[in-house]
């Protein structure tokens, strides 16, 4: 046998056969790969045709399969080597082989592959084998591969179809199905080039009579189940293909439509049900124009038949087997395709009413949504579509609701009632026994229902809230927690849509009643967790209500503070506190002391999550923000900082008490001294989270009124120089101390940056609005320029240490991005960077990144150079430095860019790389010389473009003068350099 390890090719047919057997036998994966490579070499070789012919009569089925595969490979890669006669001879060979397969009752594996081979042949020689299906039928009927030129002598298809045996008909169906599937997959460009539709379309007249033979009700009884199924699958493929033909060239395959009625009748045939129902569901969903008006009528009467009734009953009684579910999807597809008619004829056509009622019934099938009931979500989607249709037509009739609206609204209300039931959580132990996919799916289904409610609100307005208010009152009275939860959840969904309705607060008065609040704040704690959570969400959603209805505020606040003690509710409760404090900050001012006291009670609870404390701090800080004078804010802020400082001290104390150990990793506190380090870290993170919380809360709300008359006054220096500076210093000191101790931890760095960000985004002075040099940790020099210069020196030293960009692409990218961000405003910082050798290194480093292979550094470098070349004129002597740098580095930049455009870059990088090219062309007189030199440089990566192509490319981009067309020219040149193998995508 040939030694595949050494890359040696087999020298005899026996050796090839042995290799094929080895390929299809179990074995080591590396051996299989090598065998496959050897066989592929053979298949692609000029002798591949002969090899396939020699193998097709082998006794071994696997080898015959490989022979068919080899023909396919050759057809796809080497069809051009065949002359016209060779091609006709090959066709004769393939059809002759198929006939022999029929004679020896060959297995499906080989016959299917052979059918695919015939289709591969068609894809290459479609113009010389146009009536391929009739020719195939003609040859099969004659038991002989007839020349295509003799097709004129063939009898009519009508006669041929009767002469074909079932087995031969199956082979024709396989070819016909694969034919349209393959043509359907052809991309638009090839389709236009080869005009495949024109070649395929005539075949419809040949395949339709054959399909008809097997799906027509009069003969189906007699035919074998398999051939009927293949006929239906073939019809399905052709219908699917006809959609593509319609989209591409508006071709309607009319003969196929003659099969719609007989195909519909096949729904009741158990052998054909699955294929047929799938076919019509897809046609209704994607290509309903294929169906005539009468077909819709037939479908409608089919849904009224006892057959449909029986299937419907099975489905809603909880039979969610595949076939049963398919029926539900079929019903929904019909509903989707006719939704406009169904709604608009509601008042006049009882059948529409009946059908929509049935679709409403699908929302009430047995079992819990998702976990048991698989039809609920698709049915809900239909109702969402219906409501969207209603919204589109709200004012379609002269500013009034159309006449059918009330009937449709009543039906939607029925659907809502069913969805409300489906949205109720099952008992906790049952819900927790579901797998996570079902649990997530159930919650998603609730949100989909909430979407429907919000859409429907647009057609009803605020009175829709009353439905859920009634349900809340009823379920609260009966202590039905699941119903109460679902009702509260539904009402919560309207918080955004109803926010501007003047009557909203009146409706909500009926919800936030003392009795309902007592239910949640009562001592018995009988309300289950999901209901409590939904009630907290309701408070968060409608927090603004309490600004206008202050009487309910104390009880609500008591409830939310109580809820912080429950680990499962603490996060939502703290969020509710933030929202209530923020929205009602002025009203709550007198209670500031009480809030601080509340926090004192909470602060000592170390089991509380850091983000919970952060949210509560944020809430209290927003009340402090409402104090009129800056001086008044100092004392309460000091109190908040005292809480945080206690955490900081505790953290530092823990860290200082840790016994140093040689063995443990000193950079990871969690590893230190039996968990003390971890606790210190957690306290540090919590402290920083709380500082960030205060920073967010103390910000001036951006939705306040703007006084246009107010004269610009000097910014207050209270927080930087006055009494408030004490607060800034305390905050800063805490940040520094904690950072010095734990600054090597990512969590700490992240939190400290968050605190700074809050201050940076403020427009007015405040305790967190610190001067830039403080942000730069006082280590980076004076003033912004000094800070940036020092930072640049640090970044440059990091890049120096790195050496090559590829050693750490992430650091390279961020380093280059930092330098890039300096450019627009602080180019002097970059150009004055010392020593000059370091500046040169930075420039060269970006060029290396540009010519490298890492995408993100390359992108950053391209942005840097585009911005650098495009810098507006700078004052002297800065401009001289810029010019000097560009003159020195321009040729290298051009070389790096051309190296990429010449095929080195990935396709997705081209647009980014075009930017510096465009800037060079527009702004640099030497651009042409530099680019030309780069194109002719030996480092140019492609050897398949000529110098003429390169000159033409250069000419084009120079002529475009940086216009957008440059991107397309660059893309085309890249493609030329890479070769035609890469032209598979437009």
């Amino acid at each position, binding site marked *: 046998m040939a030694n595949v390890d050494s890359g040696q090719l087999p020298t005899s047919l026996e050796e090839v056969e042995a290799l094929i057997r080895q390929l299809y036998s179990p074995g080591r994966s590396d051996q299989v790969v090598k065998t496959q490579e050897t066989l592929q070499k053979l298949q692609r070789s000029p002798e591949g045709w002969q090899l396939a012919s020699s193998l097709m009569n082998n006794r071994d089925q696997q080898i015959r399969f490989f022979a068919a595969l080899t023909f396919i490979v050759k057809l*796809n*890669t080497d069809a051009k080597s065949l002359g016209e006669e060779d091609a006709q001879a090959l066709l004769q060979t393939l059809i002759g082989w198929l006939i022999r397969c029929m004679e020896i009752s060959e297995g499906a594996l080989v016959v299917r592959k052979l059918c695919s081979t015939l289709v591969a042949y068609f894809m290459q020689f479609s113009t010389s084998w146009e009536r391929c299906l009739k020719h195939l039928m003609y040859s099969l009927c004659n038991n002989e591969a007839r020349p295509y030129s003799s097709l004129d002598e063939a009898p009519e298809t009508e006669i041929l179809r009767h002469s074909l045996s079932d087995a031969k008909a199956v082979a024709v169906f396989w070819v016909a199905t694969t034919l*349209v*599937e393959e043509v*359907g*997959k052809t*991309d*638009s460009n090839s389709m236009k080039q080869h005009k495949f539709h024109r070649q395929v379309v005539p075949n419809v007249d040949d395949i339709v009579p054959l399909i008809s033979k097997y799906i027509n009700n009069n003969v189906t009884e007699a035919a074998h189940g398999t051939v009927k199924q293949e006929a239906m699958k073939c019809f*399905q*493929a052709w*219908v*699917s*293909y*006809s*959609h*593509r*033909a*319609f*989209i591409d060239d508006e071709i309607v395959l009319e003969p196929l439509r003659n099969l719609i009625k007989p195909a519909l009748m096949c729904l009741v045939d158990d052998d054909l049900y699955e294929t047929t129902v*799938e*076919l019509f569901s*897809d*046609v209704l969903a*994607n*290509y*309903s*124009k294929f169906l005539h008006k009468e077909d819709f009528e037939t479908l409608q009467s089919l849904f009224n038949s006892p057959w449909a009734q029986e299937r419907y009953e099975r489905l809603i009684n909880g039979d969610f087997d595949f076939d049963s579910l398919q029926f539900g999807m079929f019903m929904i597809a019909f509903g*989707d*395709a006719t939704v406009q008619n169904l709604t608009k004829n509601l008042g006049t056509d009882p059948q529409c009413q009946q059908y929509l009622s049935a679709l409403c019934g699908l929302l009430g099938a047995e079992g819990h949504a998702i976990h048991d009931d698989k039809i609920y979500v698709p049915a809900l989607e239909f109702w969402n579509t219906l409501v969207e249709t209603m919204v589109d037509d709200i004012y379609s009739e002269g500013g009034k609701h159309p006449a059918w609206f009330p009937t449709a609204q009543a039906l939607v209300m029925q659907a809502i009632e069913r969805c409300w039931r489906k949205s109720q959580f099952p008992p906790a132990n049952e819900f927790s026994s579901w797998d996570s996919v079902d649990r997530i799916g159930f919650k*998603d289904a609730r*949100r989909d229902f909430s979407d429907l409610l919000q859409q429907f609100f647009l057609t009803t307005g605020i009175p829709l809230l009353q439905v859920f208010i009634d349900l809340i009152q009823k379920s609260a009275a009966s202590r039905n927690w699941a119903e109460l939860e679902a009702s509260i959840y539904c009402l919560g969904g309207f918080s*955004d849509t109803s926010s501007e309705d003047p009557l909203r607060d009146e409706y909500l008065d009926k919800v936030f009643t003392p009795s309902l609040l007592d239910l949640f704040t009562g001592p018995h704690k009988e309300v289950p967790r999901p209901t409590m959570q939904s009630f907290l969400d309701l408070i968060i959603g409608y927090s603004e209500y309490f600004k206008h209805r202050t009487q309910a505020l104390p009880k609500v606040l008591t409830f939310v503070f109580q809820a912080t003690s429950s680990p499962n509710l603490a996060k939502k409760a703290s*969020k509710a506190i*933030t929202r209530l404090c923020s929205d009602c900050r002025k009203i709550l001012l007198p209670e500031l002391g009480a809030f601080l006291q509340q926090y004192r009670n909470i602060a000592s609870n170390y089991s509380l999550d850091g983000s919970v404390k952060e949210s509560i701090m944020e809430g209290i800080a927003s009340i402090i923000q409402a104090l009129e004078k800056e001086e008044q804010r100092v004392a309460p802020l000091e109190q908040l900082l005292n809480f945080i400082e206690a955490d900081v001290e505790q953290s530092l104390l823990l860290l200082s008490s840790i016994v140093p150990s040689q063995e443990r990793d000193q950079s990871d506190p969690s590893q230190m001294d039996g968990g003390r380090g971890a606790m210190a870290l957690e306290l540090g993170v919590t402290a920083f989270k709380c500082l960030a919380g205060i920073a967010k809360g103390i910000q001036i709300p951006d939705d306040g009124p703007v006084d246009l008359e107010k004269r610009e006054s000097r910014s207050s220096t209270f927080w930087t120089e006055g009494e408030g500076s004490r607060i800034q210093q305390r905050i800063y000191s805490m940040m520094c101390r904690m950072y010095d101790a734990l600054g090597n931890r990512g969590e700490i760095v992240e939190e400290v940056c968050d605190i700074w960000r809050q201050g940076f985004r403020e427009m007015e002075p405040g305790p967190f609005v610190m001067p830039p040099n403080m942000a730069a940790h006082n280590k980076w020099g004076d003033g912004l320029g000094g800070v940036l210069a020092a930072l640049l020196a640090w970044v440059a030293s990091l890049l120096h240490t790195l050496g090559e960009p590829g050693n750490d692409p992430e650091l390279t990218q961020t380093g280059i991005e930092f330098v890039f961000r300096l450019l627009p405003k602080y180019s002097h910082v970059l150009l004055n960077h010392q020593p000059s050798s370091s500046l040169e290194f930075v420039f060269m480093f970006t060029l290396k990144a540009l010519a490298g292979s890492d995408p993100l550094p390359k992108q950053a470098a391209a942005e840097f150079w585009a911005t650098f070349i495009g810098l507006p004129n700078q004052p002297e002597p800065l401009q001289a430095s810029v010019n000097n740098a560009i003159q020195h580095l321009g040729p290298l930049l051009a070389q790096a860019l051309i190296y990429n455009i010449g095929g080195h870059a*990935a*396709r*997705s990088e081209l647009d980014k790389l075009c930017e510096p090219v465009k800037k060079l062309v527009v702004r640099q007189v030497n651009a042409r010389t530099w680019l030309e030199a780069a194109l002719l440089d030996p480092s140019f990566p492609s050897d398949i473009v000529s110098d003429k192509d390169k000159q033409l490319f250069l000419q084009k981009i120079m002529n475009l003068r940086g216009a957008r067309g440059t991107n397309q020219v660059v893309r085309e040149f890249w493609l030329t350099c*890479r070769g035609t*193998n*890469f*032209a*598979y*995508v*437009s």
Partner: protein
Amino acid sequence: MAATGQSFYELYRRSSIGMALTDTLDDLISERRIEPQLAMKILANFDRSITEVLADKVKARLTFKGHLDTYRFCDEVWTFLIKDVTFKMENSSQTVQADKVKIVSCNSKRPGDPQ
């Protein structure tokens, strides 16, 4: 149905995931591990899958407010240019600001499909 007749928009090929896929296919072709014909089929599958997944599986949502600057409807494609946009993500109190946002939206059904 295999949905061979239904074609899908190619617009997601320009998304970051689509471009990453195309780059990977380019690499595989360069290494002669696949043929361009297979790459074409993979991209056609991608067009279909991403359309379906975005429609069916993505449940995250956001809301945004801004000033509608320009809108147009041409060749079944809506284009909206919105200025000073504030995005609010689900389950997050943080907002994201953008000076300008362009929204290009196509009919989820290709021409010839029911509207």
